[in-house]
């Protein structure tokens, strides 16, 4: 008999609750939407004082262990922070740095303490993963040859323009390895910036050809670390997207409560009201998945329950954000179509987020296999 594996753990630790409050307060006070807008067309996309504050609050190290300079709260503690940042559409390289830290830690552990210590201390990290556009392949086309030199390019490397430490996914004689590359090892013309749909985010194509990595992480742990880190990337992106969907929802409801047409507040029309309710319900569902994920992920290799949680969180968050961003533009009418309206930020965030760490179909296909083909369930 089929029995749907139902891990339904959901809770919030005192630390996670505090992080949620503090991060929401930080976004409200330090990075209101006008401040975010002011950075849309700057080179880095964020203010360095904002980044410095995040580093001082310890956010770059919250999910890394004490031994390497972190706060040892586990990766689940990053979820409320990213939900709050998403709620303000605040970019910054925190997501890239957190993911880089997870990948190094999971693959190399304390042996990479120096590198991890630098990330905790505020240096910016990112993973260079995509050989081209497909999240669903190994992406190990870039070679580390016998002379210890890399050859090849990586695409859409998040925050590459400000990165200090690149974690490059490569292959050495067909085996996946992680090449740690310092920024100053890159050629001066190695980066070509992408024109991203979401102007709060930055990414670039990076040519690593001829670069000798400062350090190489090898071994069996690399493949499993990579798998888990991509799942955590999906979870943290989902957290950020859920926060953005919540903010998008409140921008819609504010408008529906104040805008009048044909002598009535437009929020009284069911044609606008009911889709807005569906955005609300979708946002709450995504939030439940995201915090379920936050409850069950750990420093250990991810369980299959955790894998299900991360994938479901990503699907739910993408679905609601794409819908919310799309409806936000439409429901604001002519104004919604203009650059001035925040709906344009939301619809652009939705398009950016839905592909990060794999789109809905990518995850749903894997969920089908996990849930329907497992012998124990069959």
């Amino acid at each position, binding site marked *: *008999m*089929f*029995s*749907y594996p*139902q891990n*339904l753990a*959901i*809770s*919030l630790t005192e630390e996670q*609750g505090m992080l*949620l409050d503090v991060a929401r307060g930080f976004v409200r006070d330090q990075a209101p939407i006008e401040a975010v807008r002011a950075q849309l067309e700057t080179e880095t996309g964020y203010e360095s004082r904002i980044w410095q504050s995040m580093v001082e609050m310890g956010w770059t190290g919250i999910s890394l262990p004490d031994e390497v300079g972190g706060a040892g709260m586990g990766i689940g503690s990053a979820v409320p922070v990213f939900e709050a940042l998403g709620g303000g559409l605040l970019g910054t390289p925190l997501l890239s740095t957190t993911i880089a830290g997870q990948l190094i830690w999971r693959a190399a552990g304390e042996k990479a303490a120096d590198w991890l210590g630098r990330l905790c201390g505020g240096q910016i990290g990112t993973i260079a993963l995509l050989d081209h556009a497909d999240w669903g392949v190994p992406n190990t086309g870039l070679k580390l040859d016998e002379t210890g030199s890399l050859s090849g390019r990586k695409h859409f490397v998040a925050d590459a323009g400000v990165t200090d430490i690149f974690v490059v996914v490569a292959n050495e004689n067909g085996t996946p390895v992680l090449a740690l590359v310092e920024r100053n090892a890159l050629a001066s013309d190695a980066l070509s910036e992408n024109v991203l749909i979401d102007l709060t985010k930055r990414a670039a194509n990076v040519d690593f050809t001829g670069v000798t990595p400062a350090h190489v992480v090898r071994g069996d742990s690399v493949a499993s670390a990579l798998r888990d880190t991509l799942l955590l990337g999906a979870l943290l992106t989902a957290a950020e997207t859920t926060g953005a969907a*919540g903010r998008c*929802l409140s921008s819609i*409801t504010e408008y*529906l*409560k104040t805008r009048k047409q044909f002598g009535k*507040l437009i*929020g*009284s029309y*069911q044609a606008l*009201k*009911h889709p*807005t*309710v569906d955005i*609300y*319900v979708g946002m*709450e*569902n995504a*939030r*439940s*998945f995201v*915090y*379920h994920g936050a409850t069950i992920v750990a420093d250990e290799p991810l369980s299959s329950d955790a894998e299900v949680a991360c994938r*479901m969180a990503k*699907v*739910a968050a993408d679905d609601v954000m794409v819908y919310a961003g799309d409806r936000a533009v439409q429901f604001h009418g002519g104004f919604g179509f203009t650059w001035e309206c925040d709906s344009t930020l939301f619809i652009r965030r939705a398009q950016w987020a839905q592909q990060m760490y794999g789109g809905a*179909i990518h995850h*749903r*296909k894997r*969920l*089908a296999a996990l*849930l*329907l083909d497992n012998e124990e369930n069959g």
Partner: protein
Amino acid sequence: MTDSKAALKAFRGEVAAWMAENVPADPGFLLPLTFLEVGTEQQLDFLREWQHQLWSAGYLGMHWPTEYGGQGADPAYQFIVDKELSRHNAPIIFNTIGLNWVGPLLLDMGTEEEKAQYVKNILSAEEIWCQGFSEPDHGSDLGAVQTRAVKEGDEYVVNGSKIWTTLGNYADHMILLARTNPAAERKYDGLSFFLSPMKVAGIEAHPIRKVTGEYGFNQTFFTDARIPASCLMGEEGGGWKVAMKTLEYERGVTAGQASGHWGVTIQIDDMINELRALEQDGEALLSDPIVRDDLVGFMMEAKALSLSARRMSVSALNTDYPMGLALSVKYRGTEYERRMKQYTASKQGARSALYVGDADAVRGGFWQRAYFSNFGATIGGGTTQVQANIIAEHVLGLPK
């Protein structure tokens, strides 16, 4: 009073053992899926006897006072019994209007005489209750009730008509909302609440056939029906307040209901097990990539509902929309179930077209019937569309 985990665990074992012994076998005729669909004398007799048996064993209304037939126990005990009933696929406990609405209402607001007269017989199924609120011209708009009750000596004379009277043709009593004063300044002040007998001259319940092909509710006609004046609950003209309290019990906003096992529960596992046995294009249905993707969608919905139910008790994750999760339970849950049943009914090849009564029907036409029956949940107690308005207005603060 909260009993220890160990005591509850031991109780669960005791109940499970009792169920294994006593849950009746398939009677060989169709049983209703919910209390809204009791349509034959055969079903009625069977369910009455089953409820009586459960109550006699001490497993119904466990948290109601002992002097009125309960056990005076913590509500956790009844919750365990309900879970076990569901787990053992036990027939439904059908006297729902009495058990879940009238009983709690009487225990809350009734006089000593009323409690003594009615409550125990609700539990034992000796007396069946129905509800006379909605009228043909006034579905959800209860303030507009037109059925008249005129006092003559020690009786009221009732004229008018009620509709969607579940169990009306079998009931011994009705909670009746009627207009005693058409001249009242506020329409609500002209209403009174009666614990009316049903088996008197001038009251006729005419069964209404449903989309399932089954019966269960009625239109009830009152033609110069004389009921004792002592049936009035509370004051004359004070009926609105009592009716609103009743709705709190009906909608589960206030606790105290005697049994949650009023319908057959269908889980996502049932759906997938059913579909797993089916074929399409000469292959297992579950090898079809589109079906697999659809099922991921259903499994996600099922999990989101369960997770959100649990998240309600994590207060720090409910500050943005404090009542939001609670007020959207019906909206999310009933629509999910409707789609899930329709989906399962539609994936049976040519057998999708078969209905209850055909020997070839998948699981006796269970899914087709369950799909139709589910409209009771998406319409009754406030339609999905009304629920969406409630969420929009009370959770999101949108204008009426």
